[in-house]
């Protein structure tokens, strides 16, 4: 009983200390975190900067019109520690980007992962990168 009470108290303590992830990152309701969009395009710009690395890709819509999508990534040192650098993505490189899109329909989002032409997944938030903080 005493152990159970300690466990409950410990869990309650953990919940008190750790704010829920959904509200922790400071982006509020900007992006739809339950929706994932998969976009095929070519890299048009990489802003390798702190505290948010930005990546832009040109995507052709159904009518053949090019739309530039921008998405935010983690900071430079988090990505660097995972082995990425400012030349990991090159201008003109074909990629598939998986994003949580902006809820207002703007061509913007936050990265879930980037898939290279050979199928390799990089900068994956699912694998430990944390652009949400």
């Amino acid at each position, binding site marked *: 009983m005493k152990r159970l009470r300690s466990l409950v108290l410990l869990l309650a303590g953990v*919940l008190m200390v750790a704010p829920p992830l959904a*509200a922790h990152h400071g982006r*509020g309701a900007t992006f739809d975190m339950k929706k994932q969009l998969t976009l095929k395009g070519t890299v048009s710009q990489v802003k390798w900067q702190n*505290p948010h690395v930005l990546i832009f890709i040109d995507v052709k819509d159904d009518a053949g019109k090019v739309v530039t999508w*921008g998405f935010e990534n983690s900071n430079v040192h988090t990505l660097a520690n995972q082995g990425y650098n400012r030349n990991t993505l090159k201008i003109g490189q074909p990629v598939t980007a998986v994003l949580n899109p902006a809820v*207002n329909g703007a061509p913007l989002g936050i990265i879930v992962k980037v898939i290279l032409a050979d199928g390799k997944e990089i900068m994956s938030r699912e694998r430990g990168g944390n652009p949400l903080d």
Partner: protein
Amino acid sequence: MRNRSLISLLATVLVVGASSVAMAQAQFNPRDLSGIWTIRGHRSISANVPPMTPEGEARLSANKPTRGRFLGEPLNGQHPGFVRAVRIPSQGNDPAHQCNPNGFPRLLLDPEPVEFLQAEGRLLQLFQWERTLRELWMDGRAVPAGENLENLGPAWYGHTAGGWEGNTLVLNTVGLDDRAWIDIFGFPKSTAARIEERYTRTGPDTIELRMTMYDPTFYKEPWVSDVKTFTRVKREETTYFGWYGLFSGITEGICAPLNEVDSYNTLVRDPAGKGVGK
């Protein structure tokens, strides 16, 4: 006879083993805090916010954080100050989102690497985030007070001095700029605040920190921290570009307005939040 030899051998092994463990535990100088560390603990001073003065409450309400739980959510036992986040980042007024200094203690509470460098009469804290240096004077001087403090004026990181009490380094910081928040949640501090830090090295790879903030202008009682623990960052985790040994150490986490305000906020944050929640 054989049994006795075996027992002696086992006893020797146990004694040697025990002394190796004791030696391993003792293999640190309790007055050497140098190294690269990250802090663990509550992202504010602690969850136990003391009662605030009316002036303090007013300043808390004026600060609009984007972090913490959203305004309007159930408190679930938390202090209301932790449940105030705005849902659209551009509607917040966190000074750090314009790349203003985090200030003390907010930067210290951030779990980003910080290097402690001990010099003659000083301890230096080099923070990866902001790439800012905090100078903690240990040369016998007292923290400025009275007219001296008034003439110096406040600073983002204040003015810090202290020294060893046994094996605990005790520091006091005064003269803090009240525009910098205490934490990511927007708790305020006044220019009259004094913050005491007590660092105790508890092992080769751990330092414990206890803090207390005395700010009678905004808080009716001292704000006592939880026990925060600094753990040593492994060398390979501080290696720039992920190439072990090529360029290791504290990297540059500068928030420059050219990057954050003119680029991120303008190109992504604000257009992505436009019209949301209306």
